[in-house]
């Protein structure tokens, strides 16, 4: 039996070991889901074949000219799509996790705070009116206009929410209501743009609103991957500071945290991560809530472990959902946003029925 003196250390160390095991388990699960996602689809390819194609693409791309169809399926379609699902899942989950810690409210997420609607409006603006700017922008940066516009509007919505949260007497309910209001306003903006634009752009905006991985290509991955990874590393480096906020702003300040700067930079970085992905995928709800909530059940409240755990869960949920979305009614593909609404609804109903609603109130 351990001595009482060591109880806390033992608890901490065994808890830490358990957390690393859970994170390692999630990495393995994500790897397996990735293999399945590359394998699944109308055109069946064995795992060996996929490995061979990837190996050739890296080592000797000329050989791929002999198998153009398989190359297109694996290299141009399935890998970027799986990667976009992974990075989007990571971005939305870490954004939700960090926003919940920063605003001390477990119900906030990019979706509930109206960021998704605002970013979609920004992207829709760029789609509809961006053509006027395109002649002045080099081709390789044209996607950047949509991202920048989505980010700008997403950031505006978060600034609005932040201002509300700083108002005296504002409660958790006020924040959520402010998010709902801002969501409605931007949704109205998107509807006006849809009404005014031509058929081609209307289709593009509509696809966005449904949420899906149709925008997956290597160009998107080159933009999304570094943004996601840098945002993840930054937010992870602030995990201790985020933990201190749970004790209240006064204690956090006394523990050496610049609370105002942390809130502003944290919200900025979380918004950047979420809106950069949303610009390519459209509205995808619930990941920012489900990832952190399941993460807390598995690993606890320590953001040092919760942020990576939420990121992996977000990636796993979105990758599996996207694979289901494109294979369940094969060859017809359904928007992954629809799947997420169904899963998210069932998940929160399950929480309520299990009496776990205290976790979300």
């Amino acid at each position: 039996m351990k001595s009482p003196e060591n109880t806390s250390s033992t608890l901490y160390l065994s808890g830490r070991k358990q957390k690393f095991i859970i994170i390692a388990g999630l990495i393995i699960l994500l790897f397996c889901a990735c293999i399945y996602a590359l394998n699944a689809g109308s055109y069946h390819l064995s795992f060996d074949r996929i490995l061979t194609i990837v190996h050739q693409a890296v080592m000797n791309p000329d050989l791929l000219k002999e198998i153009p169809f398989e190359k297109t399926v694996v290299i141009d379609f399935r890998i970027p799509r799986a990667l976009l699902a992974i990075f989007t899942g990571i971005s939305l989950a870490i954004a939700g996790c960090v926003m919940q810690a920063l605003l001390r409210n477990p119900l906030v997420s990019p979706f509930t705070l109206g960021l998704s609607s605002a970013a979609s409006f920004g992207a829709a603006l760029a789609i509809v009116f961006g053509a006027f700017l395109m002649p002045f922008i080099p081709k390789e940066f044209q996607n950047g206009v949509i991202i920048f516009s989505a980010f700008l509007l997403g950031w505006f919505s978060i600034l609005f929410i932040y201002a509300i949260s700083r108002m005296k007497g504002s409660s958790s309910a006020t924040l959520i209501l402010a998010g709902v209001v801002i969501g409605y306003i931007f949704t109205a903006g998107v509807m006006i743009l849809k009404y005014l634009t031509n058929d081609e752009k209307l289709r593009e905006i509509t696809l966005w609103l449904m949420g899906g991985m149709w925008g997956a290509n290597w160009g998107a991955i080159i933009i999304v991957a570094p943004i996601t990874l840098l945002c993840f590393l930054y937010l992870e480096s602030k995990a201790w500071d985020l933990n201190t906020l749970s004790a209240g702003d006064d204690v956090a300040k006394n523990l050496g945290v610049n609370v105002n700067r942390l809130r502003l930079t944290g919200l900025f970085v979380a918004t950047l991560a979420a809106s950069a992905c949303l610009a390519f995928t459209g509205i995808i709800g619930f990941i920012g809530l489900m990832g952190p909530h399941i993460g807390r059940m598995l690993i606890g409240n320590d953001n040092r472990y919760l942020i990576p755990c939420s990121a992996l869960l977000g990636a796993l949920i979105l990758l599996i959902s996207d694979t289901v979305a494109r294979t369940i009614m094969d060859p017809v593909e359904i928007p992954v946003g629809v799947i997420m609404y169904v899963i998210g609804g069932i998940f929160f109903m399950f929480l309520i029925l299990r009496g776990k609603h205290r976790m979300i109130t």
Partner: protein
Amino acid sequence: MTLVVEGLSVHYGSIRVLSDISFSLPLGEVLCIIGPNGSGKSTLIKTIAGILEPKDGKLLLEGQNLDSISRNEIAKKIGYVPQDFQFLTSATVLESVILGRRPHVQWSLTDHDLDIVNNAMRMLNIAPMAEKMLTELSGGERQRVFIARAIAQDPDFYLFDEPTSALDIRHQIDVFSMIRAISEKKDKSVLVAVHDLNFAYHYAERVMLIDKGRIVCIGTADDVMTEENIISVYGVPMQFISTDAGRYVIPDWKKADLNRAYADTTELTGDTSGKRSDV
């Protein structure tokens, strides 16, 4: 090491809350701040804790202005236990105490950090409840957790903002005994804002009486807690009783009630010709 406060003034917007506060706090001393509600006790504690910005004046640690020291370094020197706890998130006792190590760690806790956390939890007798959620604890237990967090922070100066305001008498004694232990066994300084004059009298080396944001008097309990000072600041008739166990201050309830009745009558009749001679 000494904490020196020189000419400190603090404003809330255009309202001056503290004016020209000056005192010093050497290591190993317990200094109690007493004063009525709204006198500026919590504001003074929060300003020294780095939570509020002073308008004028200096805060010096070892002769060095706190403005020139990084937040993290200040956090290693000055710990704070707040008055109320509005943010009871779903953290465990162990997670809450570990937070105190934030100024000392980069990402991972070392064995040394864990030893300090262990000692803090053992000192406050909360090790058996390490896995409990804060929301499951009583007010007294939570108070011990928050003191343990400050001890885990391992500062030289502890700031307590009315640590016993929500506690019964037994837990009040527990908390003040801990405060004395921190000062005596660990040779640390404690600045504590309290409402209970008797605790200030019996547990502090020095007492600071403040009113309307200014220091009325600072010194030993006997020097500061005189009949004249207490009655003039609190506006309530007090009795000072000396016993074998020491001196005690208690309100004279009877006179206080008579005075209140008198005030109510003059308010109703508008007659202000009389005088409140008792107070």
